[in-house]
């Protein structure tokens, strides 16, 4: 899932950096506040750990093996903020030193792997672990579902980033300038193999390590999410904030990607400028109108604008995945004390 340079347009890359920045900023600030001088060695060792664990191949039932990111595990043990910083650090070193993933694409890679995965994995895990004893099987279920959902969603976002390129950036003869496949190809191509292999591997590793930790080092799990007792929000409060943030993000990301796209197009050829300037107000108007429409309103060909259709289907996709994950978590945690 490490996106190299050259696949995404500079406008998308800048936008992805802007998306990650607040997560980096709050992550570092919270670690500095609560850990102060202790934060540098802790993050360094954890980043080194996540770098090394990315080399672990785990055999998954069926005969194949897959690499893991360790992001879900880090999120369960350290909490999402510390995990974001640790995984980002590992990704930065991978990009610069090992050429895994591009330097300009760091924003996108960090968003997919160091923000999406930890945020979702830890939120789902905590939802399950909520007030349960350390040896409760619910914790393992939560860790598995969290890891699986986190990686699958990260793949989904990577597919979204790829798929949006041919809509926005074309040469005058119509050939796509960056990643060439539309959302209808890029999203299934990213999500299906990850959901079947990589996410399963991640879930397996996370569950197994947590099962080992329960026996060998339960104290570490007890203080999970609080390296050095980071002060934090209440569990449910945190969960709710996350979902609100994700919904806003889901709604904003296609629009946000559209806006800088046209700005760059304007800067390029006249043709693109015409296309872009026309598309924006229309797009916003239609998107804002859609919310009140009944479900039939989502009938994409009826919109007549294929670009808008793609972006809308992406938006609907994010919403559907989020709602399914939420419902599933909800059903599985019925009966646990709030």
């Amino acid at each position, binding site marked *: 899932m490490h996106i190299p340079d050259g696949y995404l347009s500079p406008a998308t890359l800048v936008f992805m950096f802007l998306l990650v920045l607040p997560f980096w900023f709050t992550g570092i600030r919270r670690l500095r506040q609560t850990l102060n001088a202790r934060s540098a060695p802790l993050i360094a060792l954890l980043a080194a750990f996540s770098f090394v664990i990315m080399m672990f191949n785990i055999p998954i039932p069926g005969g194949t093996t897959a690499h893991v990111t360790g992001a879900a595990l880090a999120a369960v043990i350290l909490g999402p903020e510390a995990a974001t910083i640790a995984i980002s650090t590992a990704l930065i070193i991978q990009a*610069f030193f090992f050429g895994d993933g591009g330097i300009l694409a760091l924003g996108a890679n960090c968003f997919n792997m160091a923000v999406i995965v930890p945020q979702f994995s830890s939120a789902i895990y905590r939802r399950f672990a909520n007030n349960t004893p350390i040896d409760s099987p619910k914790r393992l279920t939560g860790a598995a579902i969290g890891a699986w959902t986190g990686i699958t969603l990260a793949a989904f976002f990577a597919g979204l980033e790829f798929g949006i390129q041919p809509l926005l950036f074309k040469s005058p003869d119509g050939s796509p300038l960056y*990643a060439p496949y539309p959302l209808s190809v890029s999203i299934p191509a990213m999500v299906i193999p990850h959901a079947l292999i990589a996410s399963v591997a991640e879930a397996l590793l996370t569950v197994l390590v947590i099962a*080992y930790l329960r026996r060998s080092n339960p104290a570490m799990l007890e203080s999970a999410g609080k390296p050095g007792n980071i002060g934090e929000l209440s569990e449910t409060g945190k969960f709710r904030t996350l979902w609100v943030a994700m919904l806003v993000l889901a709604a904003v990301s296609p629009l946000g990607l559209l806006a800088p796209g046209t700005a760059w197009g304007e800067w390029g050829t006249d043709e693109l400028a015409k296309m872009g300037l026309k598309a924006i107000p229309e797009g916003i108007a239609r998107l804002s109108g859609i919310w009140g429409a009944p479900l039939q309103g989502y009938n994409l060909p009826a919109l007549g604008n294929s670009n808008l259709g793609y972006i809308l289907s992406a938006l609907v996709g994010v919403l559907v995945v989020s709602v399914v994950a939420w419902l599933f978590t909800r059903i599985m945690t019925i009966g646990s004390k709030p």
Partner: protein
Amino acid sequence: MKLKKHNVLEHVIRDISSALERSIFAEKISARPGLLQSLDARVKFVCTMALLIAVNLSHNLIVIAAVYLVVLALACSSRIPAVDFILRVWLFLPFFTGVLIIPALFLTPGPPLASLPLGLVVTRTGMTTGLFLLLRVSTSVSLTLLLVLTTPWNTVLRALHIMRVPDVFILTLGMTYRYIYLLLRIANDMFLSRKSRVVGRLSGVEQRHIIASAGTTLLSRSLNMSSEVYLAMKSRGFHGHVVTLNLFKMQKRDWIWGGLLLSLSVAAIILGR
């Protein structure tokens, strides 16, 4: 005949060794007397970023190809073995980019360029798209490789100062890099010692348990080590403020080469529009 089963232990050991091998290669090259090795790290960093941006902004294939040729020339004058440098980039490309490009040749709608057997038609737009992706990715990867091969990591880190990256973050990156090697060695030792005790074939379940226990041990050791490192730093007077030596000094040749490469980037951006 039975299919060869995946041996996870060997797999991980091989990956770890190749990471160590790559970094040793980089260290060896960065110690050679060459053009880029002699330049100030800040200049190299800024120029690499500028060229990367130019390559990614360019809407013109010839401009990207020209930048790639410049990168090759720079690699040669920095005493990087040319064949090695080219192969490193192009051998790894087919796995990621090739898989992506080949279907795009046929699937991108546009005027036909060539017909292949089985009714496959390569379109002109598909070809253009494929070339863009191939050249852009290979040039970007080569640029990154060039920076890494000619600059010791610690110097790259110090160069980050000019980007106003906070000191604490640079310190953390430096420490991470240092401890990656320690943890890689620990992991390597764990897997080697386990492998040397294994007779016969391991089942999938057994392999998973080995990987998970290794992961758990590594995690526990990392966390313990972070406390030890912190105490060691504290006992030597560290209280959160980072002091770094800034040994950079711009010389005439740094200005000249920096100016040259930056104007090349600007030219590439303008010509590539």
